[in-house]
């Protein structure tokens, strides 16, 4: 009873604190500015995608999506994400484990390097793979001699996407596992659990929401990456066009329905991502 009363009596919500009250016109003025900005910059664009995609009706929408090029683009996008996300997830877990559970020389440098791809322009991220595997690149001759295409082919797209989405999982896990400490794991080990058992029974249940969060963001970026992929893809219709590239190509061909129907798929992906993100944040806050 007392604990309960204490909370209400001594730490009430901010709204009750008179000294923090801003004048009415300030409050609603600022709310107006903020809401106006969000509606104009964020809500309107979302609505516009649907408006444009369906501007010629359902039929045109479906026809545009059923085009072989569009379907190929969707398939390629899925393939890229299916390769990229698991690889980066395994890396993220390994890196977080090494960084948060052990002390070693150069640890902070390693943490910085993991974040490096975030500060590199997507176009440069594509460029470096062209420099490596392109016709004039380091390994270009060797690869072309063996008839392996990397640039202007799927492997190049996958590599560029891996580079771009490299830090997502690791950077979600590292702070969380740092904060958690390793007492629980030590307890499990002291009770005779093996290393893998400890990881699967103790660590993984504790980090699962953050892990999913990282995977979600990684996936969204992998499916939506444009700049880096655009450099290495060569824009070959039906072969090396991912969905975002298909949007670009259609838009540049003045195929509004084609561009926006594909864009609506990607926008839907973004909305699903946001909803799941909110859900995971809510889940994580209750852990």
């Amino acid at each position, binding site marked *: 009873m*007392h604990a*309960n*009363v204490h909370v*209400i*009596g*001594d730490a009430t919500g901010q709204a*009750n*604190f*008179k*000294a923090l009250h801003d004048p009415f016109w300030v409050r609603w003025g600022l709310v107006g500015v903020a809401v106006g900005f969000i509606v104009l910059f964020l809500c309107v664009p979302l609505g516009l995608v649907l408006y444009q995609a369906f501007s010629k009706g359902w039929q045109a929408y479906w026809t545009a999506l059923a085009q072989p090029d569009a379907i190929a683009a969707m398939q390629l996008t899925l393939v890229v994400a299916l390769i990229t996300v698991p690889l980066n997830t395994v890396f993220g877990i390994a890196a977080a484990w090494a960084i948060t559970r052990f002390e070693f020389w150069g640890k902070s440098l390693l943490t910085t390097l993991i974040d490096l791809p975030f500060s590199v322009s997507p176009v440069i991220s594509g460029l470096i793979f062209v420099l490596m595997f392109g016709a004039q690149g380091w390994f270009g001759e060797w690869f072309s001699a063996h008839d392996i295409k990397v640039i202007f082919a799927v492997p190049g797209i996958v590599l560029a996407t891996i580079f771009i989405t490299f830090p997502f999982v690791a950077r979600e896990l590292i702070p969380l596992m740092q904060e958690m400490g390793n007492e629980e794991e030590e307890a499990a080990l002291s009770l005779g659990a093996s290393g893998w058992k400890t990881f699967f029974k103790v660590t993984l249940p504790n980090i699962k929401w953050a892990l999913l969060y990282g995977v979600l963001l990684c996936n969204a970026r992998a499916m939506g990456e444009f700049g880096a992929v655009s450099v290495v893809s060569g824009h070959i219709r039906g072969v090396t066009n991912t969905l975002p590239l298909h949007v670009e190509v259609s838009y540049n061909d003045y195929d509004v329905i084609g561009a926006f129907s594909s864009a609506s798929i990607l926008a839907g992906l973004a909305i699903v991502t946001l909803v799941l993100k909110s859900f995971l944040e809510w889940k994580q806050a209750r852990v």
Partner: protein
Amino acid sequence: MSILLNNISKNFGKFAALYDVSLEIPEGELVALLGPSGCGKTTLLRIIAGLETPDFGRVLLSGEDKTEQHVSRRGIGFVFQHYALFRHMTVFDNIAFGLRVKPRKERPTEAFISKKVHSLLELVQLDWLADRFPDQLSGGQRQRIALARALAVEPSVLLLDEPFGALDASVRKDLRQWLRNLHQELHVTSIFVTHDQEEAMEVASQVVVLNQGRIEQQGAPADIYDHPANAFVSKFIGQTNVFDLSETESNWLQRAGILAEKPQGIFAHVRPHHIDIVKAEETSGSPVTLKDWQHLGATIRVELFNPQHNGSGATLFAEMPNERFKQLNLNKGDRVAVHIKQAHWFN
């Protein structure tokens, strides 16, 4: 400045933090608002400060109605529980803040401000910390800086929210004495909130006991201790043995001397030092077993067990000077007779 609170009520949602509280505080007093957590004492302090508005009732400072006046115009000094020092400012800038935000016409010169800040720093004996940031100070130092900051604007009332709550026990002892001395020096009407009855009794000249949003009693510390107005105050201030007449054999009580007069209520509250004991065969006092004792410095606390009943009153505490206890020459398990010298009666 005197403070007058008329019929103050404050609700947070459905929870009544304060219910019809009226209180008068004469000028120059050092008052403790004492009560268990959640009793509304902090809310009352914040209402006096103007950090919160009451739902009903008026706040009068020096006879003027200030209920609607904003905290920044009220001329009070408020020391926050966790000090709320501006962490981006040095100690000097923290203390100077109140002077620097005055309207241009009233604002003193920088030279004056500097002099004032240094004299306050001297007052709180921390002049050498002027260029530090709050994060670099110890808890006790922050407390004193917060006080200096509140004093800089020469407030007519000083309000302190749990001023010693966040400090180590040893620092707390020193600061209590220091605050008392400071008050005697400055003589500004001061109110502090505390849940520690010992602290309230030691520091304050007046104690206001609150419980569940109501004032239970107001008075000088000695008054409150010797004449508690009700069972809550009696139990909350100091130690008390409670005898429930409906559970206790009147026979036993009569022999202990408590029922010499007519009972004036259902519960008899007896302070430990109002219980005297002697070896059982000496007098006809009511017999109990000596269970254990603890040394409390100059006095001894004796734990007694009354095998004749269960429930309240089964275990009694008595306190007496060391000398007296030695004279009695008692051992654990001895039968002793209890003599009760004084009791407070409540319903």
